[in-house]
C-alpha cells in the first residue's frame, strides 16, 4: 500500500483477462492492490513489494511487469492477464500442465508469477534455450525448488525437438 495525503480518484478502463472493467479508483492504488482488493483476483501475490521477487508478476500489454511497481491508473487502456486468465474453461494451459507433469511446484507461492513469466517467454521466444529460460525467469524468485523442475517444465515446451 502506498500512502497519500489526499484521496484523489480517477476512472480507469482496463481489459482484465479478456473482460472490460471500468472503475473509479484512488490514484495511488498499485495495480497489485487493484487486482487483489477491487477485483478479487488474488493470484498475484505481494511478497517483497519492491520489484525483486516477481510474485506479483502480471502481463500488461504483452509484457511482464511487477504489479507492485505499477500504479493502477497507469493501466488505463491496457490489457492485463493474471494467473486467473491463463487456463481456458478449466483446461490448463500447456505450461500449467507441464508444471504438474514435472512436479515443478512445492509451496506454490511463486508459481502464479513464474507461470506468467514462462507464458510470455514462450510467446516471445518459442524455442528458448535453457540459458534463455534461466535469463527470462531471473526476475522470479523461488525458495523451494532450486528452479530445476521449473526450468524443465518450460523447456519441455520450448525444446521439444
Amino acid at each position: 500500500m502506498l500512502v497519500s495525503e489526499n484521496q484523489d480518484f480517477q476512472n480507469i478502463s482496463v481489459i482484465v483477462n479478456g473482460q472490460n472493467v471500468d472503475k473509479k479508483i484512488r490514484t495511488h492504488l498499485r495495480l497489485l492492490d487493484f487486482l487483489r482488493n477491487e477485483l478479487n483476483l488474488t493470484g498475484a501475490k505481494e511478497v517483497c513489494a519492491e520489484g525483486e521477487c516477481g510474485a506479483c508478476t502480471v502481463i500488461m500489454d504483452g509484457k511482464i511487469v511487477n504489479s507492485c511497481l505499477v500504479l493502477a491508473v497507469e493501466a488505463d487502456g491496457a490489457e492485463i492477464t493474471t494467473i486467473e486468465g491463463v487456463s481456458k474453461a478449466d483446461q490448463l494451459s500447456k505450461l500449467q500442465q507441464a508444471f504438474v507433469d514435472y512436479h515443478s511446484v512445492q509451496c506454490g507461492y511463486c508459481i502464479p508469477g513464474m507461470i506468467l513469466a514462462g507464458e510470455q517467454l514462450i510467446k516471445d521466444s518459442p524455442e528458448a534455450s535453457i540459458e534463455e529460460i534461466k535469463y527470462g525467469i531471473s526476475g522470479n524468485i523461488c525458495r523451494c525448488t532450486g528452479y530445476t523442475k521449473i526450468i524443465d517444465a518450460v523447456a519441455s515446451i520450448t525444446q521439444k525437438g
Partner: protein
Amino acid sequence: MQYYRPNSLEEYFNVIDSQTLYAGGTDLIPRYERGEILPQSIIDLKRLPELQGIQEIQNSLEIGAAVTIEEIKNSELLTSKYQALQESSIDFGSVQIRNRATIGGNICNASPAGDTLSPLYAFDAKLLLTNKNGHRLINIEDFIFGPGKINLEEGELLQKILIPKTKTKSVFYKLGLREAMAISVINFAIVHDKNELTIAVGAVAPTVLKFSGLTGLTIEDIISGIDQTISPIDDIRGTADYRRKVLRNMLAYELSKIID
C-alpha cells in the same frame, strides 16, 4: 495524489507546475513503498511521443528519455557501434524491471551505480533538456552532480540523449553480488577507436568518473592513474579495498582485450 498522463509535450507544458516527473516508476515506487509520502501530483512521461525512439541522425545517435532498458537491450542499432551501452542493459534488473525502467529515469535518478551511466559518460553523451521556452544541450557530466543531484531546472525535463557517432569498439563490465537483479558493486565502460581511449567507472565515487586522452599510456599507467583518482566507500556490497582490487584486475583484463 493527482495523476496526469499528457500525450504531447505541448499538453505537458500546460500541466506542469511543481509536479513530480514519473517514468517507469522503478526508482520512485520503491521509495513510496518504504513509507515516503506520495507527492501531491505526478506527471507520467511515458506516453510523450517526443521522448520515444532510438535513431541515427546526421552526427549522432538519439535515444528518447522514455525508451525502456528492454528496448535498449533489443535495439539492433546499438549492437554494432554502441555495444557498451547495450551490454549495460543485459544484466539490468529482470525482464519485469527492464520492461518498465527507462534510460531517462536511470540518468535522472543519478545513482553512482546506475548501469547505463558509465557507457553514456564513455561515449561522451549529451543530454537534451527541454522546457516551455526551448532546449539546452549539456554533457552528461555537467548534468549529474552527485547521488540524486542533477542539473534540472523547474519546468524542465530530459527529452533525449545524444551520442556522437564516432566510436567503434566498446565494452561494459559489471560486478554484482549475484548473477541476476544485482546492483553494481563496480561497473565500467571502455570506448576505443584508433585515436582515442576513454574509460568511465561507476560506483567508486559520488558520480561516475571519466578518464579520456589515455592513448599512448601503458595499461599499468592507466590503471594506477585511475586508482589514485577514485574514492570508493565501504558498504553492504563490498569494502573500498575490494572495489579497488576488482577494478584493477578487471580493467587490466578488459583493456588487454580491447587494445590489440
